């Protein structure tokens, strides 16, 4: 029956969604509560004394103006610093779409039922996508609670935007993981490639940020993390071309996964 794989996937995922969401929202809450403890101008002065490579490692470019604000502090302290942590959840979910089930052998049972391979992938992808949205909502609730508890002045609209901007990022990472798993077939190999992809992207972003104004700056453009820049979003709001880019690439990777999965052997 249509939707049954989606429903079952959600049933088996909600606990992980809750744990990850609560954990990440607790981190965000802690950062927001700490905002009043710092003088933002002092923070900006401190940041200015850091070498570019250190700033780059925490996701900050050399334009530090935005970071003299409360929003900027949250952008560095939570969104910038946690980029790699945000990537873990969609990687875990992306591996579950095909790789884990093939590795465990449960995909044989599922695909022996009257259900198309494409439907399995699409319903699982949607269910894990929903779980990513759930995690992001929990993160926002944690940040919002921090604002209330700490009496912190934060631009609510921009906070909402920077948090919900995580959704296209997470869906993109999940789609990339799924495609790699479909192509690599073996779970361990897929996981290795995905890890290299995420860490490699982080390093390229770091190099790009550290080399701002030099010939090496374009290197950062290769990294998908460059298109999730919390400081930029706080300054400008949603950057629609970036969101569209994530959406188009995610859709393309979903289609590529469907095409390849339809044609290959299962669990070999």
């Amino acid at each position, binding site marked *: *029956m249509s939707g049954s794989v989606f429903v079952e996937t959600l049933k088996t995922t909600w606990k992980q969604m809750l744990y990850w969401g609560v954990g990440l929202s607790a981190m965000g809450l802690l950062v927001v509560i700490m905002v009043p403890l710092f003088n933002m101008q002092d923070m900006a002065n401190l940041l200015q004394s850091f070498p570019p490579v250190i700033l780059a490692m925490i996701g900050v470019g050399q334009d530090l103006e935005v970071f003299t604000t409360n929003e900027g502090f949250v952008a560095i302290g939570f969104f910038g610093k946690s980029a790699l942590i945000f990537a873990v959840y969609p990687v875990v979910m992306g591996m579950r779409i095909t790789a884990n089930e093939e590795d465990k052998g*449960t995909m*044989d*049972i599922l695909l022996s039922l*009257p259900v198309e391979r494409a439907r399995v992938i699409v319903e699982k992808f949607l269910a894990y996508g929903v779980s990513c949205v759930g995690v992001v909502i929990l993160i926002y609730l944690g940040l919002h609670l921090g604002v209330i508890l700490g009496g912190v002045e934060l631009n609510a609209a921009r906070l909402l935007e920077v948090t919900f901007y995580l959704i296209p990022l997470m869906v993109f990472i999940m789609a990339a993981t799924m495609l790699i798993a479909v192509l690599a077939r073996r779970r361990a190999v897929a996981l290795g490639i995905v890890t290299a992809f995420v860490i490699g992207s982080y390093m390229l972003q770091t190099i790009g940020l550290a080399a701002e104004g030099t010939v090496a700056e374009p290197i950062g453009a290769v990294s998908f993390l460059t298109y999730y820049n919390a400081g930029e979003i706080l300054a400008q709001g949603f950057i629609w071309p970036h969101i569209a880019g994530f959406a188009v690439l995610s859709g393309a990777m979903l289609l590529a996964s469907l095409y390849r999965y339809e044609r290959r052997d*299962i669990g070999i």
Partner: protein
Amino acid sequence: MASDSVIEIRGLTKTYGAGRKATLALSQLDLTVKRGEIFGYLGPNGAGKTTTIRLLLDLIRPSAGSAKIFGLDIRADSVEIHRRIGFLPGELNLWEGRTGEQIINYVASVRGDSRGIVKHADELAERLDLDTSKRVRDLSSGNKRKLGLVISMMHSPELLILDEPTGGLDPLVQQTFHEMMDEYRAKGKTVFLSSHVLSEVQAICDRVGILRDGEVKAVESVDKITTVDFHWVDVVFRDSLPAGLPQQLERISTITDVSTNGARVRMRMVGDFDPLLRAISNGYVEMLHIEEPSLEEIFLAFYSGDEEPAK
């Protein structure tokens, strides 16, 4: 396709890998399984039984050849075929964190018409004495197998594809399983059952296909396979072998491959036991052990050459 055929396989071939690492798992398989029969697919481990089943289920794709189930193409019509079949894999892996009941509900919901299916699943579980409230990870291998049987049979499929179905089941449940297979046959349904246990196939099946090194070497009725059956017999005497016993045994036409070890004599025997019992009656027999031949031995006995049965 003949109207009484449920499975029709023509030239089915599967090669894993490519180039120098290519492994031929199944070669030019031709096979027909008729409606209403229980077909045993026999072969030693690695012969290609599971590969055949995974091809039929469209889990892997053939390198050459084709197959039809219910007259439908296994690739183009896989969803319609899967609606009408039940499958139990040899290496059964289920969702470890879910209970039997949850898995039954999930599978039933994917199949649609879940209420009727779940009701039948409950009846099967009761018959197999399976507690479906436990999580899969807490079930013994035998109980996991029972759950697999329930899942494969709960929608009363027209065709059951079972890969080594009784592995891990205790003898009582095996008996229940045999009864279930008889009921399936009586209802005119079809079972394709792979096994490497000859006695199981003899007990259940109407016809058998013997697979070896990726090729079907024979398709015969179970009765015919049974007629070439032989046994290995070990006789242990209390003190020593009676004088001249080995020579006496070798003169018996139904006994071959006689070997001795101290007070023990081992031989390969076909037909009646009477000549053997008369020959050993001069000594004090401490132990008599009769061993069923392995599938490979049956195969070699049945087909000593490429095609001709050994007489």
